[in-house]
């Protein structure tokens, strides 16, 4: 008997037979193959082992007959050995394989966003009503340190290195076409254009139909160099070198050959059906001075007209690394924290490698200031930005902007079943199966993205106004606007904030 079959499923599929009309809608809707008609009958059955609780069948059932509940079967577990531990061991004992996961870690690491509180003005200076008074969220991302030079008549020569202009300090995080579906990419591209911000191709290249949104596109160059060529580099508003990702620091990428079909393979510029393997490192970067080489070869290729971003995972010595990057010609550093999402990552890496974004961001910002080079680079933070307050806290800690991945996916319909790596997303997001992809309406998804970012921007303005701040740059690194609650001295020192009440 299969070891996995001796283990209870995670979920129960509860079908109310009084309501069920056996229409078979659930059979069609489930991307994971849970529901089926019992052969030769009109009776429905469910293979609960396949269920990931993506909610698609429940939402689609016309009579409300379905409910997915946690399995009530008692599982022997202890404080030390959880049911999940046991299930994983059984799976590996049976398969001999490495555990894979999708999305961000499920482990309970401290969430510092929720231990930081935002200030407001009372009496000694006025709060500002953002509905009546100007409130500026426009953000310039890039190197701002400039030489003061004047022409013959003493006028300032106004030239700054290339940068990105964001109407709100929110970017869409890098998610490749291949990891997510075409309509998702289209929705992100159009939403970024409408919002005056940027989305990011990830390492999957840029679909020919999306070149028209190039002015709002960051094109990524990862270690596999998929889809990277001169026109691709020229198409974007900026070029990002992906060194690492919060969900899988130190790990490359791997798009299974089965997913590398049709437009995906054309966009990545590799033959259909072959694995798309991104090596763990860039093989032209084995040291910090090599990074400088890649940064400048990309600048050469784009004629010094576009800023170059370098994205790294938040790891233990992130401050020193970021400082090295800032000295390597990069215009913008993106730091992705421990809790960031992914289309697929080895579970142990996702759940155990790296450090939380809040601490990484605070450490990087402080180090760059100590070295007097904070304004040599823009700083973007990502990895569990869940709401507008998280953004305000990130900027007060020192970020110029944040990038949102998981939140954007949720806005497009993701139900967080953590099964992206299976490629069976019933919502048409993290899949390339045509019948599933078709479900995602790019118009609707774009509208939801625009709504979300618009709403968050309003909230950011409210919070800024409350502090008496009417321009986002006056919030950047303004750590006096934060206080910690329930944090240790070490945490407060690293975050550079005082405890509430101080």
């Amino acid at each position, binding site marked *: 008997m299969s070891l996995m079959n001796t283990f209870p499923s995670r979920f129960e599929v509860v079908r109310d037979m009084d309501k069920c009309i056996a229409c078979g809608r659930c059979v069609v809707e489930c991307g994971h193959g849970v529901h089926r008609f019992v052969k030769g009958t009109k009776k429905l059955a469910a293979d609960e082992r396949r269920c990931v609780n993506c909610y698609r069948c429940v939402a689609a059932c016309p009579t409300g007959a379905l409910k997915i509940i946690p399995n009530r079967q008692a599982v022997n577990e202890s404080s030390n050995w959880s049911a999940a531990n046991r299930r994983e061991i059984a799976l590996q004992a049976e398969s001999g394989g490495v555990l894979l996961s999708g999305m961000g870690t499920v482990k309970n690491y401290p969430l510092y966003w929720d231990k930081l509180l935002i200030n407001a*003005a009372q009496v*000694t*200076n*006025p709060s*500002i009503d953002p509905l009546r*008074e*100007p409130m*500026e969220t*426009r953000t*310039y991302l890039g190197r*701002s*340190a*400039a030489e*003061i030079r004047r022409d013959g008549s003493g*006028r*300032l020569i*106004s*030239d*700054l290195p290339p*940068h990105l202009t964001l109407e709100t300090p929110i970017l869409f995080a890098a998610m490749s076409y291949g990891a997510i579906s075409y309509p998702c990419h289209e929705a992100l591209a159009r939403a970024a254009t409408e919002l005056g911000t940027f989305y990011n191709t990830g390492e999957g290249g840029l679909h020919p139909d999306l070149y028209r949104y190039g002015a709002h596109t960051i094109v990524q160059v990862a270690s596999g160099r998929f889809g990277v060529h001169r026109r691709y580099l020229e198409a974007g508003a900026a070029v990002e070198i992906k060194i690492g990702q919060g969900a899988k620091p130190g790990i490359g990428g791997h798009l299974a050959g089965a997913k590398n079909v049709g437009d995906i393979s054309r966009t990545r510029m590799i033959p259909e059906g072959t694995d798309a393997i991104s090596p763990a490192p860039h093989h032209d970067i084995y040291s910090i001075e090599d990074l400088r080489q890649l940064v400048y070869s990309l600048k050469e290729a784009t004629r010094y007209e576009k800023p170059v971003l370098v994205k790294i995972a938040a790891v233990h010595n992130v401050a020193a690394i970021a400082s090295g990057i800032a000295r390597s010609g990069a215009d913008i550093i993106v730091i992705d924290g421990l809790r960031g999402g992914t289309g697929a990552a080895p579970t142990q890496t996702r759940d155990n490698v790296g450090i939380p974004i809040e601490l990484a961001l605070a450490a990087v910002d402080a180090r760059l*200031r*100590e070295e*007097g*080079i*904070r*304004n040599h680079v823009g700083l973007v933070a990502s990895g569990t930005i869940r709401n507008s307050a998280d953004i305000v806290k990130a900027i007060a800690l020192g970020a110029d902007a944040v990038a949102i991945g998981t939140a954007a996916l949720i806005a497009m319909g993701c139900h967080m079943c953590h099964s992206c790596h299976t490629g069976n997303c019933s919502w048409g997001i993290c899949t390339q199966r045509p019948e599933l992809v078709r479900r995602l309406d790019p118009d609707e998804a774009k509208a939801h993205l625009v709504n979300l970012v618009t709403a968050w921007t309003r909230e950011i303005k409210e919070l800024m106004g409350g*502090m*008496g*701040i*009417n*321009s986002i*740059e*006056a*919030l*950047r*690194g*303004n*750590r*006096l*606007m934060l206080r910690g609650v329930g944090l240790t001295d070490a945490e407060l020192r690293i975050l550079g904030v005082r405890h509430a009440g101080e």
Partner: protein
Amino acid sequence: MQKEGQVRIPSGCAIVGAIDRSGGTICGGDMVRAIAVMHDRSNGLGGGFAGYGIYPQYKDLYAFHIFYAGSSAKETCERFLEKHFDIVNLSKIPTSPHPRVTDAPLIWRYFMAPLPNKLARCQLDEREYVVRCVTRINTQMKGAHVFSSGKNMGAFKAVGYPEDVGEFYRLDEYEGYAWTAHGRYPTNTPGWWGGAHPFALLDYSVVHNGEISSYDANRRFIEMYGYKCTLQTDTEVITYIIDYLVRRRGLTLEEAANVMAAPFWTTIAQQEPERRERLTFLRQAFGSLLLTGPFSILVGFTGGLMALNDRLKLRSMVIGEAGSRVYISSEESAIRAVWPDLDRVWAPRGGEAAIFTVKEGA
């Protein structure tokens, strides 16, 4: 209780400035009488003045005004000064006992020039050399605090109401072509004279009314360039910003004002191309030096005064002109009380620097 610098104390204030553009002199006593009108804008926890052109006999020497907590601090500090400067003259700053100005520290004045060989050896610009000496004393020498370090100018300050502080320092006996005055309304007792205003570095002195909401963003940026915000006051950080932008980066005062009170992007978009480009450049290059929240500031410098309001104009400030004289105040009444006959009274727009300078050669 923590003293100023260990804790950030919000405060409101009154400010007055006066300048004679033809180079004629204004008596320090007039400033005392003007600021006294706005008594209710202060709460007795800080007052001060800065006068320009008050030391013509030593105009080429740096005039240091120093508070000492005791004689041992004085000895340590003077040993340091002797090692770095040629001290031409030193004396106690003359004061009169005042019933409402108490707990005075030792207050000394030095007229000095940097020792030439020392200066040459450290390869610094003379003014940078002086700044570093001041920073060293103020951050590393317990009980010593340099509160004025410019040429032919001086700051005078204390815990108390400004009019009492003025009498204490016998400002009636000083004459200068420009003055600033400040009455402070801190939310709690600083208990330390160094925390009063103006804040001065070299010949820049700043008095300020309001509380900026951008403080820590500004502080953490400016500290990248070797400044240490030991007092945690807006005035201190604003002084450093001006020193950095004007002395070290070579911006004009007007350009510095365009950084500190940058127009809104929508306003910038409406400017003619050349101005738009300049304002955009300044705002992008020095975004972290934008001051938000309410402020009106007066900046004194050799040869002039600059008045600047925040871009929303959340604090009051009026300017009165009479011939070559210009008066600037939080309230018109303070000007009228001392100089009733004015040709013109006006209020500069938010974010727009009003700069007044003494005529060349005057």
